[in-house]
């Protein structure tokens, strides 16, 4: 059986309705799962003996601006055993933009989730240390959101006094 079919079949068998959508675009498999099952799916993908997606390469988000469920959180995970990268997605609401952290499963997700929080304001519950990575502490906005102006909000970042 081909690997992609195996992944989809295993996920559907274990999580049923929680697997919302499966797309295969240009040989890249993307699986959309329910937000409340994201930690379980992550744990399963990592620990299943045939899959062993042991490495989390990236966590990021997409801001769809006008969509009802505004944000999509995207995970890229990699299996050394199968030499394969899988994309997992989950759609979340704007108010509040919350979902569970997967940093307990993939340690590398710790900083990726911090970056996603910094840029999109998505709150990862149960994250051990959810601070900003790039922007200064005390900055109030999330720059990669679609409603944030490109040149920023004047006065939101302090500059030293002119001499």
């Amino acid at each position, binding site marked *: 059986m081909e690997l992609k079919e195996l992944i989809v079949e295993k996920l559907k068998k274990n999580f049923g309705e929680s697997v919302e959508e499966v797309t295969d675009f240009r040989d890249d498999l993307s699986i959309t799962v329910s937000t409340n099952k994201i930690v379980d799916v992550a744990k399963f993908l990592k620990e299943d003996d045939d899959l062993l997606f042991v490495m989390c390469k990236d966590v990021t988000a997409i801001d769809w601006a006008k969509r009802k469920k505004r944000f999509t959180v995207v995970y890229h995970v990699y299996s050394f055993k199968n030499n394969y990268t899988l994309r997992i997605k989950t759609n979340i609401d704007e108010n509040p933009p919350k979902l569970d952290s997967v940093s307990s499963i993939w340690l590398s997700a710790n900083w990726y989730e911090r970056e996603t929080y910094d840029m999109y304001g998505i709150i990862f519950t149960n994250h051990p240390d959810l601070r900003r990575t*790039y*922007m*200064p502490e005390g900055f109030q906005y999330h*720059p990669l959101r679609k409603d*944030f*102006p*490109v*040149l*920023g*909000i004047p006065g939101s*970042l*302090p*500059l*030293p*006094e*002119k*001499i």
Partner: protein
Amino acid sequence: MGLEAKLQQDGFITTTIDSIIAWARKSSVWPMPMGISCCAIEMIAAADPKYDLARFGSEVMRFTPRQCDLMIVAGTVTYKMAQVVRRIYDQMPEPKWVIAMGACTSSGGMYRSYNVVQGIDQFLPVDVYTAGCPPRPENLINAVMTIQKKISKTRARDFQDIPMPKPETVNN
């Protein structure tokens, strides 16, 4: 035709203190290499033997601001980095000069964005702006020579109003 030729004739020269101090100052400009990004590579190239900034007395790049009188800000200055740049500038002894090297430093350059300061003249007194992305070493040398021209016009009384920095007091 340098100083030696004059000394061979009479053994002495007449000048003013102002001009000889200005001459000494401009011939030993010690840069603070504030190399923040890619412009720093061209700044290093300018100091290397091929371009040889040492010909103008500026070969001693000091990595401590306390021994410098020229700050070469080479690279993109973000709002976060601006605090650091200013802090280092404040530690340099007077009199001091600033070169804004490259498009990013002068105007934000191609980073027309929320995180990049659109020109360091928003918080530093810039003396010379250098065009280019990054500027070639010749261009930086030209900037240093422009600074030298500026220094040669200074007089001692120009710096009389500069207050001495007060030593920090420690309470314990």
